């Protein structure tokens, strides 16, 4: 019997520098929430680390960030790491990454629809609705839409209208406010799913890196396998934190010549 739930894949873009338990929590919280709406069935999760071209301060090479994410997600049976974005020659706009994955997922769906006898296919029944891809993020991400030059208006529009957002609240940040303060987000608010995280867990990769520089323990904040990897490769030192110091973020440069309207229209 075909379920009328929409198959849903969640995509998280970010530095993952390094990946933390909190990143992985986002997926768990989002899945629970989307299931509880009764409208979706979450069939997959994708962690897509940003490429080195992003130019963020303290960003260690993508190959390490990918390896660590893979180690962290070894025990997950539904979230995987994807290297496509990190392998592109230049920094890739989030919307471009989404278009790529969405295209891939649709293709998989079409192929499996033609082989509906295979029970292991994600999209088991030929009559199940088209799968959707939504961007998974924390509330701080939503607030970043306001930063001049970081996002193109058209991209934000496509992101919320065509794909959709699943946003997990973080600390005292209220994503409802970001939605309220942006006409674009407000217009497509039905496609912006806000997930409340009641446990205040401010583990951030920035804090993790700081602790590592100071030789403080990060056990139980990131998986043991990732801690081991970091020590083996001597990542996250004062030197690594100074990488890209003084360099502007790639999006700001790449999008500088584009007309930028304020989002507060």
């Amino acid at each position, binding site marked *: 019997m075909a379920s009328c739930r929409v198959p849903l894949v969640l995509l998280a873009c970010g530095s993952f520098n390094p990946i933390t338990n909190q990143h992985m929590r986002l997926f768990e919280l989002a899945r629970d929430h989307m299931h509880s709406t009764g409208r979706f069935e979450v069939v997959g999760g994708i962690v897509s680390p940003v490429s080195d071209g992003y130019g963020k301060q303290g960003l260690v090479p993508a190959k390490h960030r990918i390896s660590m994410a893979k180690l962290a997600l070894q025990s997950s049976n539904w979230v995987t790491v994807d290297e496509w974005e990190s392998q592109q020659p230049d920094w890739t706009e989030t919307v471009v990454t989404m278009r790529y994955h969405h295209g891939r997922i649709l293709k998989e769906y079409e192929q499996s629809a033609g082989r509906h006898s295979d029970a292991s296919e994600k999209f088991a029944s030929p009559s199940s609705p088209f799968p959707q891809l939504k961007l998974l993020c924390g509330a701080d991400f939503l607030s970043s839409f306001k930063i001049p030059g970081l996002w193109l208006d058209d991209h934000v529009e496509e992101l919320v209208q065509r794909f959709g957002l699943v946003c997990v609240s973080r600390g005292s940040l209220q994503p409802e406010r970001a939605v309220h303060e942006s006409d674009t987000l407000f217009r497509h608010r039905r496609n912006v799913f806000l997930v409340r995280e009641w*446990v205040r867990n401010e583990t951030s990769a920035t804090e993790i890196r700081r602790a590592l520089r100071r030789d403080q323990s990060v*056990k139980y*904040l990131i998986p043991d396998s990732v801690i081991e990897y970091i020590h083996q490769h001597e990542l996250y030192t004062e030197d690594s934190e100074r990488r890209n110091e003084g360099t502007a973020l790639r999006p700001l440069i790449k999008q500088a010549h584009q007309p930028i309207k304020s989002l507060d229209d």
Partner: protein
Amino acid sequence: MENPTTSKVVLLACGSFNPITNMHLRMFELARDHLEDTGQYSVIKGIISPVGDAYKKKGLIEASHRVEMARLATESSEWITVDSWESQQSDWVETSKVIRHHYEELLAREHNRDDVDTIKYTKKRRIEENYIASSVHHRKRDGPQLMLLCGADVLESFGIPNLWKQEDIAEIVGRYGLVCVTRSGGDPHKFINQSDDLWKYRKNIHVVHEWVTNDISATHVRRALRRGRSVRYLLPESVVRYVQEHSLYSAESEQKNADVVLAPFQKYSDASTSG
């Protein structure tokens, strides 16, 4: 290699551990980093001592499960262990007694480890007696120290009437020592300031500030489980599996002891208190 100028410390955490979470484990890591950072201490061991079922806290599931989950959680730790002595006692045991028990065990082990040197042992005992006699200042001791590790909520619970005996509080902070890891929303310094007992022994109270708020409470975890929500990455993977395999934490389990009085209140409210 042991640094001869540092005191050896063992950290003891008492509590329900219902269930154990990553936050409990973080407390140990933070405390160890903090104490060793002072240059005065060398933390050699951590002990998790889950409370016995006789504590009668609402929602407290069987000690056997709680001890096993703590064991699974600390498998990957080189220095944190679980001790089931407290949980195996038929009556509820005051924290001060648990501390005393573990301190005596610690001394006994140290004694056995020393070469048969009665002079050194006698000297240690004399120093210890002198220490107990003098009440105010913290002093570096020859022998290992046992300190109670807790969150700010436990420190502040010292103020709840009939939950603790005043002489027990005095013994814990005066004779042993407290390492208090602040949880968001508490102000341990203010609380210490407002209590004469605590103020007197403030040098024995080490306040550790969590640089990252990590509010994973066992209450929240139990609530999430009741509602069929994921608790992955809040607890160690092996504990998540154990909870699932044994179907622990339901609406029913949360009602356990719902109409029963908590053991300390029962004990200290009784006319005859043996202590």
